[in-house]
């Protein structure tokens, strides 16, 4: 089965080609069928590979596909790597990808670009699979760039809206900044280890001393790539804007899969990071800052997708915090559970938006519980999961990260718990505003309200089950579980683990920590309940005066404005200077000056041609005399 791994990316690629070429000829049924089936087939192969890997003794297979780059000593094969990390990621990408494809057949049914949408979606899955499967940094980089491209195409899917098109450009450009870091890191890896193959790089790196300056540089650059792709401070502002894309895209690309590529990449390169503690410190601080900042913004957003977008940024911050403190398993656990519940929440939000005729502002919603019972129930599961309330999945993954953070640094833990309180608050706020109270939209919207079709609700139900039970794969020893995930991933993080201290918290401390974070989550849930259900508070409109903190949060800490004034505008001015002064006046001036000079000189010189024969003869004689004198004096 493992030898058939090449089939996994092949199916979506075929789906992309069929749907892409036949988008105007095939009917919507065929397009949807091809799109879903291709991902379904990949999922089936992934499951087979996963089962085989789970039962096999060796935990790492490299399957060469073909020799790709072979020039002198540079040998970069196009080959795939199957190990526990990539096998799990394959399941997430293809499994959730499949559910979201099914959902899209319902959600995008009225859209004119149905075929185009499915071809892009399939292309995205293809690149994501390359990213996950690549057995060296170069193949990974292809996937890395490819998902960025698909993200751009899908954010700007409704490109006739200028704001959406700019959001796509913003995402692409911010990603490019990160990609540059990644690319330089790959070059550095090649010059340092003389190979980009994971199987060659990591054993060599494992022999290096901890804190080696080259390793620090490489990991820092890799982390820059991760910052861009996974939307961390300072490059996170593209992700909320990326909500301009269709909701299934937000669920698949900007919540479940692509944005976790940064975490995947760091988890993959864990040995490099373990040996660069300085970089890890930066990773944890950035993750911490991001999780708190994004959560603080999310508490006052009124656009249902914006809340979820900032929530995604915040949860990604948790994952980076986990990576930063060496909790690789915990971070990856959170990737998995987050993929479940965030995809669920986004799809649920999509269902709400679908029912509300493309209304996204929660101030115009309310009381939807009766009309959308399934959406409400499933989203509630997702909300409880993300809030970290046991026994739903988010609790287990978040608490694993929190336990490691506590051991690492108590202050970090405090901040992370405050972040968790925010998380619980903004999620329940979103739920209450959307589903409780009375309907605040127009009567037209009220008449139109309906539960979504089965193609949309079935993925919701599946994801709700996964969100509820997903935590079971990683029940820690303290709660009487065997932590299957940790054992399964152990071969990947083996070397790193041997170089770091294992978690030494005693069970009492762990119980206290869990109790504290759960209490915190419940308290803020209660606060949200009192504020939005009991008091029926509705967020004020844009023009209302707010207090300082509320204003900061509502306006996203003015980050976009700060970037605009301190980066975009100076760059704009600089470009203007180069354009007007250097290029137009300088370079063009010189070139055009020569032309003008020739014209002007010819204008005066041509007057010599007077038409007077006598003058010509005079000039001729003068010329001959001049030549004569010249030859006489020269010799």
């Amino acid at each position, binding site marked *: 089965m493992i030898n058939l791994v090449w089939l996994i990316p092949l199916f979506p690629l075929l789906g992309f080609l069929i749907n892409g070429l036949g988008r105007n000829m095939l009917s919507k049924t065929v397009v949807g069928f091809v799109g879903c089936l291709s991902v379904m087939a990949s999922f089936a192969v992934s499951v087979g590979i996963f089962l085989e890997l789970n039962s096999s003794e060796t935990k790492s297979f490299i399957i060469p596909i073909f020799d790709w780059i072979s020039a002198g000593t540079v040998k970069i094969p196009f080959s795939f790597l199957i190990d526990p990390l990539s096998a799990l990621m394959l399941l997430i990408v293809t499994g959730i990808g499949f559910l979201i494809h099914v959902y899209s057949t319902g959600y995008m049914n009225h859209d004119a670009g149905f075929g185009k949408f499915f071809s892009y979606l399939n292309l995205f899955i293809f690149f994501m699979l390359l990213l996950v499967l690549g057995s060296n940094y170069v193949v990974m980089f292809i996937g890395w760039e490819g998902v960025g491209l698909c993200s751009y195409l899908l954010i700007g899917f409704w490109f006739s809206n200028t704001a959406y098109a700019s959001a796509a450009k913003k995402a692409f450009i911010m990603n490019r900044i990160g990609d540059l870091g990644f690319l330089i890191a790959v070059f550095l890896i090649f010059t340092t280890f003389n190979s980009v193959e994971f199987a060659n790089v990591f054993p060599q790196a494992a022999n290096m001393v901890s804190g080696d300056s080259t390793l620090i540089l490489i990991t820092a650059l890799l982390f820059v790539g991760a910052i861009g792709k996974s939307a961390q401070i300072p490059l996170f502002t593209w992700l909320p804007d990326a909500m301009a894309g269709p909701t299934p895209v937000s669920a698949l690309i900007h919540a479940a899969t692509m944005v976790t590529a940064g975490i995947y990449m760091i988890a993959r390169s864990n040995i490099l990071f373990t040996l660069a503690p300085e970089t890890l410190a930066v990773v944890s601080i950035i993750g911490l800052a991001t999780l708190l900042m994004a959560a603080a913004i999310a508490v006052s957003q009124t656009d249902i997708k914006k809340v979820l977008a900032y929530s995604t940024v915040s949860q990604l911050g948790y994952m980076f915090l986990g990576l930063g403190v060496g909790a690789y398993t915990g971070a990856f656990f959170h990737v998995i559970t987050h993929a479940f519940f965030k995809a669920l929440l986004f799809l649920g939000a999509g269902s709400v938006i679908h029912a509300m005729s493309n209304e996204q502002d929660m101030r115009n919603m309310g009381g939807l519980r009766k009309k959308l019972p399934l959406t409400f129930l499933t989203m509630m599961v997702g909300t409880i999961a993300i809030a970290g309330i046991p026994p739903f999945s988010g609790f287990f993954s978040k608490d694993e990260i929190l336990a490691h953070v506590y051991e690492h640094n108590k202050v970090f833990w405090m901040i992370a718990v405050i972040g968790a309180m925010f998380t619980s608050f903004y999620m329940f706020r979103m739920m209450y505003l959307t589903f409780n109270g009375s309907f605040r939209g127009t009567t037209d919207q009220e008449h139109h309200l309906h539960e979504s079709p089965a193609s949309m609700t079935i993925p919701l139900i599946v994801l709700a089950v996964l969100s509820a039970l997903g935590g079971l794969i990683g029940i820690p020893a303290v709660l009487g579980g065997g932590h299957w995930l940790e054992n399964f991933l152990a071969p990947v993080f083996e070397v790193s683990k041997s170089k770091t201290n294992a978690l030494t918290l005693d069970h009492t401390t762990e119980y206290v920590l869990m109790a504290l974070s759960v209490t915190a989550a419940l308290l803020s849930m209660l606060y949200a309940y009192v504020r939005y259900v009991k008091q029926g508070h509705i967020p004020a409109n844009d023009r209302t005066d707010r207090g300082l903190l509320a204003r900061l949060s509502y306006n996203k800490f003015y980050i976009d404005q700060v970037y605009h004034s301190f980066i975009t505008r100076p760059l704009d001015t600089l470009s203007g200077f180069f354009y007007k002064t250097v290029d137009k006046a300088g370079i063009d001036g010189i070139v055009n000056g020569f032309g003008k000079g020739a014209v002007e000189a010819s204008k005066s010189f041509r*007057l010599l*041609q*007077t*038409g*007077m*024969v*006598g003058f010509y*003869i*005079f000039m001729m*004689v003068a010329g001959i005399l001049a030549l004569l004198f010249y030859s006489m004096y020269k010799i």
Partner: protein
Amino acid sequence: MENITQAIQGVPLNHYILLCTIIFSIGVIGVLIRRNAIVIFMSVELMLNAVNLLLTAFSVQHNDPSGQVFVFFIMALAAAEVAVGLAIIVMIFRNTNSTDVNILNKLKW
């Protein structure tokens, strides 16, 4: 005949050079200051013949006949040139009723 040759050889070379320079200068000045095409033509002939004379003189001086052969070529060339040149001048006269070269100033700038 012997006497004539001896007489010619008796004239120092400097005198030839001086005479040729004078004739040539007259030709040049004629070309420069006259406006009548025929006179200009004649001045050109003067220059040519000044050169011819000089060639002959040097030929005798160096006992090298090739200079005199060269003179024949120049004379033949001058004859051909005169034929063409005079034809042009005749045409100019027919068209403009004048041989003043300054009238022909249409072709400019």
